[in-house]
C-alpha cells in the first residue's frame, strides 16, 4: 500500500517538479530570460523581508509580506496519506516554510477526501456562497462561479505579482489564459496539460510465450486478446481487454480530456472516431464526435468484440479495473505513459509481468490518433478574499521559490499535493520529453550529468543520478528483466515509468485531434447533462448487446432534437 502511495506521489512529482520555460530548442530567448530570472530569484531570496511597499512600480514576486497574511482555502486531502511526525495537511514543512519565509499563513476553511467528497464540498460552497479565499475547482465549477459573480478579477494582481517564470509558462501554452478569461477579466489560474495519449499496454511475456507479434491494427489486437483468452494466460477467468469501470466513461471527452486511463478511447480513435469532443467534418463545420458514422462503426466493432468475449464482460460495472490488472487476470489495457506507475501490484503478484506500451491500434491509414488533452483544474480566488496577491505568490513560490533553505527544511523530500496547498500542475509541456531523452543519452554516456539542466529540469537531473543503478543493459530494451527492481526501490518506479512508458510515448508519431470546444457553451449548461446521459446509456447498451446497433441512429436524432443542434451552432461560432 505504501508503494502505491509512493508511485502516485511520483506522478505528481513528475508533473510538478520540473521547472518551466519555453520549448528547449526554438525558444532560446525565453530560456535565457527565465534563467536570468532564476538567478534573480536566488538573490532576492537571500535578502528577505524586502518591504513590499518600497517597490510601488516593480513588485518583487518573491518578497516577504510585511505582515502575516492569511489565506483560507478548501483542501482536498488523502485520508491514507502519512505525514512526517505530527505534521498535518495544514501544518507541515511546506506551510511552515511559507509562513516563516514569506509571512503567508494558510488556514483551512475545510478539508475533504479528494475525489467525490471534495467535489461535493466545493459545489456546496459555491451553491451556498460560502467560499474560502481560494480553491482548486473543475471546469463546471469555474463556469458556475463566474456566472454567479463569485470570483475576484485577477487581471491586475496577475500582472503585478506573477513572476516572469509563471508568465513564461502561460505564454508557452497559448490559449490557456484565454480559456479562463471572461469578458476580458482573468478569473483563474489554469493547470497546464499533462501530456497524455492512450497507448495499448500488453503483457509482453504472454506475447512471447505464444509467439505473437506486437499489434499494429485493430485486427491484430483482437487476435492477441482472443489468444490470451484461448490459452488461459490469466487462468480460467482470463479477461481479454479491460477498461471502463463502474461510474467511468467509455472514452475521454472535451470536459475530461486527460481521461485516458482504463477506458476504451483507442478503439474509437483507431476507427477515426472521436466521441465526446468537437471535431470538424469534411466541410469544416463543427460536429460532435459521438454522432458521426465513424463512432457508429467503432461501436459496432466493440459490440462484436464484446459478444465474442474479447472486451471485459463487466465493463462499466466492474468496481475496480485496477484489481483485474493487479491480479493478473488480464493482459491488455489502455492507458497513458504514466500507467506504469500503477503496475507495482501486478509485478508484486507476478514478478515476470512484463507490461509494455504499444503505439497501437493504428487506423486504416496507419496513423495513431489521439485527442489532445486540455487541463481541467483551476485555482480560483473569491471576490471577498482580502489578499488575492498572496494566492498568485503561492503559485509562484511553489515552483520557483525553492532555495537552499527550503531544501534543507524538506531534506530533499519532494513536497506533494498533500503538503503543498493549492497544488497546481505547471509546466511547459516538454518536461517529459526532456527527461526521457536526457536519461537515454546519459545512460549511453553520450552526455554527462552536468549537461542536464538542473535549474529548469531539476527532476530529470535527479532521476539521472539514480538511473544507472536501476537500468541494466541493453539500455534500449525496456523489458522488466532489464531493470533492477531492488537496487534503488525509491526510484525504481520513476525510472521504470519514464523509460518504459515515457519513451514509447515520446517517440511516437501521434496524430493529435483537438476539440473545437474545450468548455461548455450556454445551451450546454442546461442541456448537456441530459444529452450526456442519453449518450452514455445508448453506447453502453449497444456494446453490451442489450440494444441493436440501429439504436445509434435513434440516439443521433434524439440528441439533435434535445438541444444538440443548438449546441452545435454555438460551437461553430467558437471556431
Amino acid at each position: 500500500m505504501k508503494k502505491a502511495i509512493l508511485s502516485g506521489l511520483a506522478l505528481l512529482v513528475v508533473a510538478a517538479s520540473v521547472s518551466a520555460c519555453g520549448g528547449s530548442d526554438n525558444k532560446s530567448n525565453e530560456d535565457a530570460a527565465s534563467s536570468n530570472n532564476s538567478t534573480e530569484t536566488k538573490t532576492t531570496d537571500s535578502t528577505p523581508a524586502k518591504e513590499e511597499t518600497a517597490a510601488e512600480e516593480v513588485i518583487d514576486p518573491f518578497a516577504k509580506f510585511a505582515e502575516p497574511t492569511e489565506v483560507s482555502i478548501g483542501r482536498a486531502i488523502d485520508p491514507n496519506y502519512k505525514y512526517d511526525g505530527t505534521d498535518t495537511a495544514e501544518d507541515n514543512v511546506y506551510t511552515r516554510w511559507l509562513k516563516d519565509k514569506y509571512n503567508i499563513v494558510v488556514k483551512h476553511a475545510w478539508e475533504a477526501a479528494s475525489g467525490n467528497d471534495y467535489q461535493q464540498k466545493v459545489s456546496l460552497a459555491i451553491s451556498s456562497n460560502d467560499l474560502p479565499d481560494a480553491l482548486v475547482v473543475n471546469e463546471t465549477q469555474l463556469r458556475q462561479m463566474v456566472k454567479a459573480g463569485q470570483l475576484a478579477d485577477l487581471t491586475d494582481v496577475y500582472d503585478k505579482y506573477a513572476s516572469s517564470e509563471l508568465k513564461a509558462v502561460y505564454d508557452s501554452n497559448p490559449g490557456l489564459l484565454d480559456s479562463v478569461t471572461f469578458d476580458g477579466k482573468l478569473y483563474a489560474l489554469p493547470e497546464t496539460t499533462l501530456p497524455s495519449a492512450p497507448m495499448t499496454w500488453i503483457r509482453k511475456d504472454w506475447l512471447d510465450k505464444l509467439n505473437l507479434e506486437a499489434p499494429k491494427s485493430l485486427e491484430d489486437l483482437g487476435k492477441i486478446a482472443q489468444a490470451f483468452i484461448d490459452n488461459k494466460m490469466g487462468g480460467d477467468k482470463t479477461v481479454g481487454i479491460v477498461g471502463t469501470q463502474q461510474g467511468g466513461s467509455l472514452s475521454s471527452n472535451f470536459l475530461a480530456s486527460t481521461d485516458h486511463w482504463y477506458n476504451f478511447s483507442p478503439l474509437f480513435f483507431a476507427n477515426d472516431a472521436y466521441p465526446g469532443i468537437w471535431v470538424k467534418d469534411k466541410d469544416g463545420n463543427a460536429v460532435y464526435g459521438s454522432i458521426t458514422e465513424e463512432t457508429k462503426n467503432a461501436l459496432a466493432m466493440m459490440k462484436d468484440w464484446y459478444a465474442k468475449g474479447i472486451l471485459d464482460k463487466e465493463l462499466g460495472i466492474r468496481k475496480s479495473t485496477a484489481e483485474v490488472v493487479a491480479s493478473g487476470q488480464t493482459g491488455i489495457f489502455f492507458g497513458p505513459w504514466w500507467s506504469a506507475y500503477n503496475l507495482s501490484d501486478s509485478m508484486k503478484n507476478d514478478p515476470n509481468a512484463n507490461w509494455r506500451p504499444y503505439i497501437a491500434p493504428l487506423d486504416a491509414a496507419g496513423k495513431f490518433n489521439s485527442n489532445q488533452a486540455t487541463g481541467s483544474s483551476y485555482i480560483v480566488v473569491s471576490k471577498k478574499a482580502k489578499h488575492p496577491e498572496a494566492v498568485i505568490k503561492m503559485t509562484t513560490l511553489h515552483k520557483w521559490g525553492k532555495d537552499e533553505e527550503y531544501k534543507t527544511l524538506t531534506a530533499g523530500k519532494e513536497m506533494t499535493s498533500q503538503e503543498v496547498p493549492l497544488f497546481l500542475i505547471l509546466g511547459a509541456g516538454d518536461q517529459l520529453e526532456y527527461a526521457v531523452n536526457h536519461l537515454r543519452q546519459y545512460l549511453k554516456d553520450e552526455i554527462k550529468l552536468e549537461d542536464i539542466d538542473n535549474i529548469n529540469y531539476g527532476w530529470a537531473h535527479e532521476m539521472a543520478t539514480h538511473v544507472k543503478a536501476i537500468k541494466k543493459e541493453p539500455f534500449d530494451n525496456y523489458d522488466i528483466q532489464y531493470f533492477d527492481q531492488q537496487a534503488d526501490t525509491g526510484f525504481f518506479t520513476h525510472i521504470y515509468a519514464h523509460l518504459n512508458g515515457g519513451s514509447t510515448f515520446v517517440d511516437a508519431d501521434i496524430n493529435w485531434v483537438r476539440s473545437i470546444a474545450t468548455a461548455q457553451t450556454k445551451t450546454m449548461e442546461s442541456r448537456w447533462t441530459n444529452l450526456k446521459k442519453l449518450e452514455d446509456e445508448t453506447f453502453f447498451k449497444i456494446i453490451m448487446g442489450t440494444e441493436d446497433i440501429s439504436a445509434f441512429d435513434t440516439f443521433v436524432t434524439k440528441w439533435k432534437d434535445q438541444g444538440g443542434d443548438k449546441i452545435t451552432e454555438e460551437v461553430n461560432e467558437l471556431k
Partner: protein
Amino acid sequence: MIPKSFSKHFYIMLIPGLVWLALFNLYPMYGVLTAFKEFNPGLGIWKSPWVGMENFQYMFELDDSKLVFRNTVVIAFAKMVGNLLVPFVFALMLNEVKNRLLTRTVQTVVYLPHFLSWVIVAGMMLDIFSYSGPVNQVLSGLGLDPIMFFGNAHIFPALVVGSDVWKEFGFNAIIFFSALTSINPEMYEAAAVDGASQWQRLIKITIPSIIPVAALLATLSLGNILNAGFDQIFNMYNPSVYSTGDIVDTWVYRAGLIDFQYGLATAVGLLKSVVGLVLITISYTLAYRFANYRIF
C-alpha cells in the same frame, strides 16, 4: 374527559418538538422557492430573479423527468408488493413451526439485514452478482451462460427490489407475527375437532385473520410510492441501467449538486413532494373510511 386546564400544559409539552421542527425542518423550506427562480448562488435564494414556471415547463419537456418518475413508481410499487407478500408468506411459514427455540432463532437472524446500511449491502450485491461472482458460477455450473446482472436494464429493477425485500422482509414480518399470535387458539381447537387438516386450517383460519392487517399495511405504504430508495440505488446503479434504474432522488442529486441545475432539480423534488402529500391524504382517507383507522 380531559379537563380544559390540561390544554396549556399540552402546549408546553409540544414546545421542544415544535422548536426542533421549526428550526431544522420548516425553516430550510424556503429553498423550494428555487423551483420558481433562476438561482444564482452569488445573489442567494431571495435575490435571484423569478422565472415563474419556466423550470416546470422545462421539466415536462424533458424525456428524462417522465422516465425517472416512471422508474420511481415502478420500483417503489414492486417493493411495496414484495415487502407485503414475502413477509406475509414468511410469517405463515414460520407460524407452522412448533419448535419455539427454532422460531426465535430464525426471527432474530432475519432481522439482521435491517440493521446494515445500504453502502455495505450494495457493495456485497455487486460482488455476489458480478460476472465471475458466485451466482454466475452456479449458473455456469448448470450449463447456462453467465449473465451481466448489473449491466442489464431489464434485470436491474429486479435486483433493486429483490435486495430491498431481502433486507427488510424479516423486519416487516414483525407485524404479521403478532397478528398471528393474536388469533384465538379456540378457533384452531374447534377446527381440529372437526378434523380439519393443517392445510385447511391455514386457508380457512390463519390467512383470513391476517388479511385485514395486510390490507391496512398496503394502504399505509401508499404514501411511499415515490420513495424508491436513494441510498440503495445510488450505490448500485450505472449508466447502462439508467433507463430503468434512475429514480427521482438520484436524478435530483445529480442535477442539483453536480451539474448546478438547481431550479430544475428543486422543481422535480417539489413535484415529488406534492404527489407524496396527495397520496398520503388518499391513504389517510381510505384507511379511515374502510378500516375506521386513523393513520395519525
